[in-house]
């Protein structure tokens, strides 16, 4: 499975992203190891979501500087559809389901790029194993699902492409604590199936508990980077937990 042992699956080198005159990412360099969960932590506005959108190429003309390599392929400047075809799936902030389409149709769109029907069916069975609830609501419009179910569907839809790398933006947002635990267990399960995961989370403690690697963004720059186990004990990360706890969870939409 690993074509280049020792090589990272994803590598960003001095990436700079702008919103008009505003700089959102400042020289971000990082690597994501194949088969690992990498957690990106940071406060609102630190550039976490921007980092994921930049990787997927959804921001026109970004990154302005720097390079992004996925499995040895330069993907910066590529069209989003092509980046998805290369093997990256994305669960955006706010889920962005198709509200009027049924659960099953949402999953169909998720597998849009695949031509191999047998492989799609296998993935679908796997997805039903991860999310048994969804298989009971296949004909229900996505807009009528509960928040937790919608999050499950958003992750399930992203898996339908059979990605090698999964980008997850705030999967715990707006979920009850018991559901958060469930979602994080599933994320671990997906990693165990061999999918590499890049996880953006405000809930730092929870994210680090399942991550292998972690990094902290501040003002668009990487300020701390290291094994998740080390970050849990790091004072600055500790301060970040406090920051999260004193801030209202709805204080901003992120960038």
């Amino acid at each position, binding site marked *: 499975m690993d074509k280049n042992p020792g090589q990272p699956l994803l590598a960003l080198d001095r990436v700079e992203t702008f919103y008009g005159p505003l700089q959102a990412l400042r020289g971000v360099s990082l690597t994501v190891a194949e088969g690992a969960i990498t957690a990106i932590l940071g406060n609102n506005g630190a550039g976490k979501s921007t980092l994921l959108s930049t990787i997927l190429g959804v921001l026109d003309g970004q990154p302005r500087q720097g390079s992004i390599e996925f499995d040895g392929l330069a993907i910066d400047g590529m069209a989003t559809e092509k980046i998805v075809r290369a093997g990256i799936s994305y669960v955006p902030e706010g889920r962005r389901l198709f509200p009027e389409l049924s659960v099953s149709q949402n999953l169909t769109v998720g597998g849009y790029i695949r031509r191999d029907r047998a492989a799609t069916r296998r993935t679908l069975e796997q997805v039903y194993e991860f999310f048994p609830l969804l298989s009971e609501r296949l004909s229900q419009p*996505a807009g009528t699902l509960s928040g937790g179910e919608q999050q499950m569907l958003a992750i399930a839809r992203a898996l339908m492409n059979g990605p090698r790398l999964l980008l997850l933006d705030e999967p715990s947002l707006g979920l009850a604590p018991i559901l958060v635990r469930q979602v994080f267990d599933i994320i671990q399960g997906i990693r165990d199936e061999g999918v590499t995961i890049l996880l953006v989370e405000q809930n730092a403690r929870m994210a680090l508990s399942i991550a292998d690697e972690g990094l902290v963004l501040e003002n668009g720059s990487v300020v701390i980077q290291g094994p998740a186990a080390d970050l849990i004990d790091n004072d600055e990360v500790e301060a970040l937990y406090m920051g999260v706890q004193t801030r209202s969870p709805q204080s901003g939409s992120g960038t």
Partner: protein
Amino acid sequence: MLLQIVASGLSSGSIYALVALALVITYKTTGVPNFAQGEMAMFSAFVAYVLIVDYNVGFVVAFGAALVFAFVLGIGFEGVFLRRTKNPTHLNLIIMTLGFQLALFGLAGWRWGADQRRFPFPVSANEVVHFGNVTVSTLSLATISIALVLMAAVFAFFRFTKLGVAMQATQQDAMAARINGVPARAVVALTFGISSVIGAVAALLTAPLITLDPTLMWDPLLKGFAAAVLGGMNTPIGAVLGGYLLGIVENLFGAYVSVEFKSAVAFLIIVIVLWFRPVGLFGRKPPRKV
């Protein structure tokens, strides 16, 4: 008597239903009604006319060519004009469709004049078929069946094919479709191509009933709008049902109230629906974005 009126209503309703469906498909994608829909269809009908009359081409080939032309015209209109709108607000896009309508109308007038031309068609508007007390022209029968088959095909495409589902997804959230690997731009263009073909079929069925001139689709477009508003601009099935309903109501009104004001029914319906049920009879309020 009543059955006869309903039967006539189904025939004109088929045209309204086709136009309404064509309008709704692109409305759901762009959020604006395409005012050029009628003229695009009229132009496609002229393509068939020229091939048949000036070049002696057979019906099948001429109609096929007209539909291919309509498809290319729809894709071209989206790709060349709409997509390049720098600031694609609803108003700007509406103005763009109005501009395209005027351009096509002017072009058709300049090229073919305002003469009312008899449109050759394989089925006659004068031959009739009897079903008990009800008399239907073979043209009406053809119109009703062709519309039904086409609409069934369109609905099956949207519902059961991966591309059709992806088109619906793009209508609901283009960015979300892109992050799932759907080439949203191409899909939007394809939406306009399909919509233009549906409109062209309506025009090819309207021209033999009346005559062909550049104003061919003015009345059907207005009625198609009314039908779409009546059924619900956001629901393709609702818009189609609205088309049949309008056709029948209009004929009832013509028979029992006034033939002169028959066309005013469409406007009256728009007013009443917008007053009391702006989402249309079969429309639902769009669910909140998730």
